[in-house]
C-alpha cells in the first residue's frame, strides 16, 4: 500500500487526524498535435477567417484540445507551463487525477512514446498511413515528409514500406518525394498499405511527364521528385479515383518504410514504454494497426500496451470527445484495471460519433 498523503479536511483539526485518504491514481496523458492540427494552427485558422459563421467558429473551437475541455467536463483546469498547454482534472468518482499536456514536435512525441506508464494520443494527419507528422505551420515543404529539421519536424514513419498517394497530394504539400523507381521489382502485396493492395497487379511504370496533362505541373512535380521533366526515369504508378474533387488521377508509390534504417525517426528504432498509444488520424486501423501490432510486435500485455485507432477518415476533435468520456467514467477506477474504463470511454465516444453523423469509429 502506498503512503497516504491526503488527510480529510474535516479531520485535520482536533479529531485525531487518523482518517486518511489514499492518493489518487495519476494518469498522465500527452496529446501530440501534428502539422496543421496544433492548437495554434486552429486559432490561426479562426483568425484568418473573420467572416466565418459563428457555427463554423464554434465547430473549430469545440475540437481544440485542451481549450474545449472545460465546456465538456466542468472542473477541468487549464494552464500553460514551460510553453506547453496543459489541463488538470480530478474525478472524485474515479479517484483519478488526469494530468494532460500538449506537444507539437517530433522529439517530444518520441519522448512520450518512450515514457513508462503514460498515455500518448496523436491527433493529426495520418499522411495516408505514413505516420504522425509534425511541423509548426501547414505551409508547403518538406515538413510534410522527411522534415526540414528531422529531429523535430516531419514524419515519424509508422507505415507499410510502400504507400500510394495521389499526385495532387504531392503537389499540394510541396515536399521532396521519394518515388519507387520502376527499375526495382514491382512491390509485393504484403509490403503495401492495404489501400494500395487492390491496385498492385495493375501497377504501371510511368515517366513524370505522363503523370499529369499540364506541363507546368509536370515541371513542379519533377522538381519535387528530383528528375528532369522529360527524363526517362519511370516510376510505379496506377490510376484511380481518390476523391470527388480530383476525380480519376495518377497515384505514385512512395517509399514509406516503418523500419527504413536510413531514416531513424521510425517505429522500428523506437522502444515504446507508454501504457497506451492512440493514433486518431484518418483510417489508422487499416494503415497502422498491422504495422504496430504485427510487424513491430507491440502487443497488448495484460493491463498494458493498449492501442486505439480510427476505422475511416476522421475529423479533428476526436481527442476531446474520447478524453471527455474517459474522464467522466462513472465508477471507481484508481488502481484498478484500465480495461473497463477504456471500454466505457470507447463505447461512449463511438456512440457520440454515430449520433453526430460521423462515418468513423474508434477501435
Amino acid at each position, binding site marked *: 500500500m502506498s503512503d497516504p498523503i491526503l488527510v480529510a479536511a474535516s479531520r485535520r483539526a482536533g479529531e485525531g487526524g487518523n482518517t486518511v485518504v489514499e492518493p489518487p491514481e495519476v494518469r498522465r496523458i500527452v496529446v501530440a498535435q501534428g502539422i496543421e492540427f496544433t492548437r495554434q494552427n486552429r486559432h490561426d485558422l479562426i483568425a484568418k477567417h473573420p467572416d466565418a459563421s459563428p457555427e463554423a467558429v464554434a465547430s473549430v473551437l469545440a475540437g481544440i484540445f485542451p481549450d474545449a475541455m472545460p*465546456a465538456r467536463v466542468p472542473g477541468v483546469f487549464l494552464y500553460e507551463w514551460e510553453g506547453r498547454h496543459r489541463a488538470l482534472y480530478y474525478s472524485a468518482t474515479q479517484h483519478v487525477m488526469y494530468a494532460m499536456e500538449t506537444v507539437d514536435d517530433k522529439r517530444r512525441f518520441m519522448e512520450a512514446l518512450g515514457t513508462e506508464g503514460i498515455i500518448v494520443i496523436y491527433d493529426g494527419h495520418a499522411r495516408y498511413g505514413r505516420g504522425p507528422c509534425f511541423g509548426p505551420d501547414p505551409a508547403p515543404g518538406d515538413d510534410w515528409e522527411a522534415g526540414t529539421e528531422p529531429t523535430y519536424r516531419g514524419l515519424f514513419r509508422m507505415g507499410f514500406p510502400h504507400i500510394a498517394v495521389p499526385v495532387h497530394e504531392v503537389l499540394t504539400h510541396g515536399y521532396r518525394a521519394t518515388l519507387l523507381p520502376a527499375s526495382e521489382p514491382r512491390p509485393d502485396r504484403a509490403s503495401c498499405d492495404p489501400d494500395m493492395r487492390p491496385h498492385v497487379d495493375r501497377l504501371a511504370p510511368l515517366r513524370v511527364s505522363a503523370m499529369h496533362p499540364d506541363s507546368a505541373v509536370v515541371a513542379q512535380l519533377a522538381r519535387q521528385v528530383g528528375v528532369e521533366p522529360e527524363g526517362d526515369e519511370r516510376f510505379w504508378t496506377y490510376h484511380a479515383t481518390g476523391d*470527388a474533387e480530383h476525380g480519376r488521377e495518377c497515384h505514385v508509390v512512395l517509399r514509406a518504410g516503418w523500419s527504413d534504417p536510413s531514416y531513424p525517426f521510425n517505429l522500428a528504432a523506437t522502444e515504446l514504454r507508454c501504457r497506451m498509444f492512440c493514433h486518431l488520424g484518418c483510417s489508422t486501423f487499416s494503415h497502422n494497426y*498491422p504495422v504496430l501490432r504485427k510487424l513491430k510486435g507491440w502487443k497488448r500485455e495484460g493491463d498494458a500496451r493498449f492501442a486505439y485507432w480510427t476505422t475511416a477518415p476522421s475529423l479533428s476533435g476526436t481527442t476531446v470527445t474520447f478524453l*471527455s468520456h474517459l474522464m467522466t467514467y462513472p465508477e471507481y477506477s484508481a488502481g484498478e484495471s484500465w480495461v473497463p474504463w477504456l471500454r466505457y470511454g470507447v463505447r461512449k465516444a463511438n456512440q457520440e460519433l454515430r449520433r453526430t453523423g460521423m*462515418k468513423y469509429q474508434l*477501435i
Partner: protein
Amino acid sequence: MTPDELEAELDALPPGQVPAMASLARRVRGEALALPNAALRRAESADAGRVLAARHLVGELDDLTIRAILDAASPPSVEHQVWRLGTAVAAIVSLRARAAERLREALGDRRRVPIEPYPPHIEEQPYPRRVCDEAYLMLRELLHVGESRGRFALDARAYLRLTDDEKDAEIARITAGEPFTRLVDDLEA
C-alpha cells in the same frame, strides 16, 4: 418527470457537457424503468400466486425488460436466473429480428446518402455510399456476430471501396441467403 419537465431540462442543459447529459439520461432511464423493475421484482417473489401475471407482463414488455433484467441485482434462485436470462435473450432476438427486417427492406434502396464533405485540408474523404450500402454494413454488424470488430472494420472499408456494381452483386448474394463475403484476406501484415 413529465414530458414538459423533460423539455425544460433539455433546454437548460449546457451544450456538449458530458456529465450533465449523463446525469439527465440516468434520471430518464430510472423513471422509464420504474414499472418494468416493479414487474420484475414481483415476478421473482416467493409468493407463487403473485408471480404468474407479473411474468406474463414482463414477457409482454419485450425490449423494455432487457435493461431492467441486465441491471438488476443477482436473482434469488437458479430458476429465476434462468428465467431472467431466457426472457432477456428472447427480447433481444425479437428486437434484432425486427431491426434486420427493416435493414433488409433498405437493401433495395439505391439512393445516395448525402455526406457533408470533410474540410479540404483533411487528406482522406469518406467513401460515397447509398442507403443500401449503409443497410448492408449495419446488417453485417447486426447479424454476423462471429466477426471481430477489427475484421468488420477492415471489411467495411473494403466494401465501400468497391464499385456500385460490385456492391450490388454482394447485396444480391446475401439477399439470396449466402454468407457475407470476406473481402480482406488477412488481418495480418
